[in-house]
């Protein structure tokens, strides 16, 4: 991937940026849209966890397919950025590939699958296994930005609850879960309290990733295109999952299981069932991480397998 030359700022550059191909402006969005989105991001960063409305644009992909994340990516990306796009940990799923190709086409930036090498990572439903660094930006695609939607249908009422930090209804939901099922059954979208103030939906990441939001050195931005909301976790922000003193928060357990490809026992695993044999097997959800471990010869343990269902 060749990068556009910047020396001497050619005459057709505008705003210090090169023109995109096919007559589109750099990174597709017009300057006005970028300015608005950046301002909203600043506000979101200033009030961690608070949902900021914005004028979500029509994008050349359908709403619900990552238009929120895409708009953040396009509003933030510069020619020197290195982009990584993942969908539930995979760089090569159709959704991830389409978005990566689109951004590359309208910006000409370099792309990568290597987490440490990326400066900007757009993700759907995962946080990469490899630790993030300062100055990296992680952009989440968010289907439902309102954590209280689960317990309250009225937007007016949820806004009041945020304004007054009245989250007793969410706590009540967790209490009822414990009473009814003996545990909290929320898997993805586990509600977190940001800076001890705002309740936030972390997007449908697994519980495994929830603890990794806490005081993360990277800037994490969240955007729901359909619901027109942006929110943010600035680097090192305190993020706590809602938990009772006597019923603590727990992440998914893969006790004794390993990735069948790389042998890792320290990563979030996807379960696969072989339809022919009925066998269950497990593999890393983060494909790039898995590949890296394998190349480094990390695979030592035999492929863990279980009996039929």
């Amino acid at each position, binding site marked *: 991937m060749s990068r556009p030359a910047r020396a001497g700022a050619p005459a057709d550059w505008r705003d210090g940026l090169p023109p995109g191909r096919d007559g589109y402006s750099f990174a597709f969005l017009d300057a006005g849209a970028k300015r608005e989105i950046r301002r909203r991001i600043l506000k979101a960063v200033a009030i961690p966890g608070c949902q900021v409305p914005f004028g979500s644009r029509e994008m050349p992909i359908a709403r619900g397919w990552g238009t929120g994340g895409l708009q953040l990516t396009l509003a933030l990306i510069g020619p020197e950025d290195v982009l990584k796009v993942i969908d539930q940990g995979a760089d090569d799923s159709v959704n991830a590939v389409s978005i990566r190709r689109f951004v590359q086409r309208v910006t000409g930036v370099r792309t990568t699958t290597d987490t440490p090498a990326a400066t900007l990572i757009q993700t759907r439903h995962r946080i990469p296994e490899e630790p993030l660094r300062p100055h990296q930006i992680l952009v989440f695609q968010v289907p439902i930005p309102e954590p209280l939607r689960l317990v309250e249908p009225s937007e007016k009422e949820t806004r*009041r609850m945020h*304004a*007054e*930090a*009245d989250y*007793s*209804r969410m*706590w*009540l939901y967790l*209490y*009822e879960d*414990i*009473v*009814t099922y003996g545990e909290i059954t929320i898997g993805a979208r586990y509600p977190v309290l940001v800076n001890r103030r705002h309740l936030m939906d972390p997007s449908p990441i697994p519980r495994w990733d929830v603890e990794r939001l806490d005081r993360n050195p990277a800037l994490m931005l969240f955007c729901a295109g359909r619901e027109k909301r942006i929110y943010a976790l600035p680097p090192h922000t305190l993020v706590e999952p809602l938990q*009772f*003193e*006597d*019923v603590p928060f727990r992440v998914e357990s893969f006790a004794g299981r390993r990735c069948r490809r790389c042998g890792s026992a320290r990563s979030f695993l996807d379960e696969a069932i072989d339809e022919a044999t009925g066998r269950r097997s497990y593999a890393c959800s983060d494909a790039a991480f898995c590949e890296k471990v394998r190349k480094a010869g990390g695979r030592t343990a035999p492929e863990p397998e279980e009996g039929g269902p």
Partner: protein
Amino acid sequence: MTLPPPIVQVRGLTRRFGTGCPACPELTGPAAETNQCPRCRSVTACREVSFELHSGEVLGIVGESGSGKSTVVRLLHFDLAPTAGEYRLNLNGAAAAGLPWLEPGQNLFELGPHQRRQLRNRLMGIVYQNPLLGLRLKVTAGGNIAERLLMAGWRRVERMRERAADLLARTEVPVERMDELPRHFSGGMQQRVQIAKALSTDPAVLLLDEVTTGLDVSVQARVLDLIRSLQRELQIATIVVSHDLGVIRMLTTRTLVMRYGGIVEQGLSDQILEDPQHPYTQLLVNSTL
């Protein structure tokens, strides 16, 4: 003989629905025998209501539907905002703890919504005629009680369950039904869960709005007996709103009689029942005996 100051002081409580006009005060109220202004069609649900509630006292508010008695209780519970009026609480140290921003003698209607909500959760309990208003029918009986405790900052499931079990036992709800949904309960049991919920944070003021209306007579009697025994045990300052003079006789020591949004008579409950002064109260008493 000096008595401690009243727990609740209400002055000039007024709530109007509609735009209102300068003629409203003149053309509505007990003297005008209507609460709707003939000029602007606004309804003055309650007007210039003033009273005091003392520690451990049970005050009755009696009147027919539309007299404004429920409006008064809803204003005091911040379910509605008043058009005018002052509302003060005199609390002892224990009750005021946890509300450090509450100034003595502050007009509670001037508090912000967040403070009002906190104050209501910590210091007030309400039981509505309609359990739908006071209970979440899709949340377990124990969860309904836990909600108030959660709002007050409780974060231990076991302790909340112990508290809920204790309150349900006291209100004669079988504790083994704690994890069932109140919508499967009878009307009388729903009211008892509401009472348990109202008592969960040891409120300083308890508001009972037509709690037995609509229940079968035998169920009514059990709920009233429960309230009486809790009253004797806990000594919570209570306001009982009812159109039923029997309820007033059984539960209250002092009574306000309301009509067309105004207080037409107030006195000791036995005096109101045996020697009513106002024509309307006489009619009310004569109608039931």
